[in-house]
């Protein structure tokens, strides 16, 4: 009769414990399949539904008396719960090789069309949600599992919270910059010093032969051409008409 309470099964739905990066996203989550849970209560015509409710509304959820009263996905904002993933009970029967997880919220096509079918649309808010499985027969709910623990979906941060500034200066930069700066300074000083010394000495005509570098005095360079032969003492032509004059040899300095 419709007033028979559904059997309370001890199974607790849960998010799969294995390492799946996408098991909880911002609008979807994954659940372990309830394999072998309904075998004692299910006929071949029965279906298993998933009830999804906000965690604070799960206590007030009432099982729908028939398939026609099932709350649909689009009623979630008003009734704070819906039922989805209508599956034949035989799919969860033992033994059954099956993919390990169910994905709640994976069907993006149905939410826009407003169909009356059970829609597994993406969840509109991060929740938290609680879920349970409900076995529905021709006359109403026959068995139900316990409510799961609250499932909180991911909340994404804005990228403006990312700070791209590096945390610390690398040591390579300090080494290169300081060594190069010192090399550059030494070079600049050396050039200025050498040029300055040259300018100074050429201004004051100082004899540089007393420098410390033994090589300096003898370095090859532009060898000036040989000095012209000194004039032999004798005639030097004077302006025409005056004849030769005898020159005295130049006196030593």
């Amino acid at each position: 009769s419709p007033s028979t309470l559904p059997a309370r099964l001890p199974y607790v739905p849960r998010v799969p414990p294995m390492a799946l990066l996408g098991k909880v996203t911002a609008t979807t989550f994954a659940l372990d399949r309830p394999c072998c849970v309904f075998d004692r209560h299910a006929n071949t015509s029965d279906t298993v539904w998933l009830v999804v409710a906000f965690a604070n509304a799960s206590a007030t959820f009432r099982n729908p008396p028939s398939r026609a009263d099932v709350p649909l996905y689009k009623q979630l904002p008003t009734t704070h719960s819906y039922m989805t993933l209508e599956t034949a009970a035989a799919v969860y029967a033992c033994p059954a090789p099956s993919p390990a997880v169910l994905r709640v919220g994976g069907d993006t096509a149905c939410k826009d069309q407003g169909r009356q079918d059970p829609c597994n649309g993406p969840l509109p808010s991060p929740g938290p949600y609680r879920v349970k499985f409900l076995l529905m027969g021709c006359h109403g709910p026959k068995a139900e599992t316990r409510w799961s623990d609250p499932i909180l979906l991911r909340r994404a941060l804005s990228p403006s919270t990312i700070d791209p500034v590096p945390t610390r200066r690398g040591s390579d930069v300090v080494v290169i910059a300081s060594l190069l700066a010192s090399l550059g300074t030494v070079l600049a000083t050396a050039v200025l010093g050498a040029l300055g010394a040259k300018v100074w000495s050429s201004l004051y005509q100082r004899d540089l032969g007393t420098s410390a570098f033994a090589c300096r005095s003898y370095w090859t360079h532009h060898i000036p051409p040989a000095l012209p032969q000194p004039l032999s003492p004798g005639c030097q032509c004077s302006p025409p008409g005056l004849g030769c004059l005898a020159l005295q040899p130049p006196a030593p300095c």
Partner: protein
Amino acid sequence: MAKSEDCIHILQGLLVFGNVVIGICGIALTAECIYFVSDPHGLYPLLEATENDDIYAAAWIGIFVGFALFALSILGIIGIIKSDRTLLLVYIILMLITFAFEMASCITAATHRDFLTPNLFLKQMLERYQKAEPDNNNDKWMTEGVTKTWDKLMLQNHCCGVLGPSDWQEYTSAFRVTHNDADFPWPRKCCAMDAQGLPVNLDGCKLGVPGYYNSNGCYDAISGPVNTHAWGVAWFGFAILCWTFCVLLGTMFYWSGIEY
């Protein structure tokens, strides 16, 4: 007399050898910088979009400095062999200018490498990858560059995001505006692809089943070539400058000993 002649010739020989090495290193620097500027890994659009592409500026300077070093080394060899004071003075002054430019290049490359942190690429990827409505032409250009580069990176290196696919889950992004979370927890390019370029198992990829999606981050694939670039320019340039410093000091010593 013989001793000082030897002294001169040894110094000349050393300086000529030093200039030969500078010439060879100049060619090598030019070649290395041309290689970096040619961007064999296709990462330039990422750096251009961060508006932090100064390591490329450093490489461009390196190309011209390399040529200058080669030319000046020839000038130096001629000046030393002929003991021409004017030539050597010109050589010293031009070398100092080249030294200054190469210093700038090394320090720029080393400094700006530090700015290229994972967070910088993460923020840029989230804000620009598949951005639907660019603000202006410049923005559009940068967005296209970033999108194409990331697509290529993720496909070729089998990686996803900067630190991993969870980058796309932890932060909202321009990608998220046009691609809903349920169908695209991360971009399709993060899925393991078959030979036709289609995901092997799309549901497995969306769920994050190991083997059907790329779980590594792409930061290593980015920072490897960028590091090689920056350190190649900075440290090789630094080595050349140390050698050039010694040769220049020797040349100045030689120059100051030449008498008219």
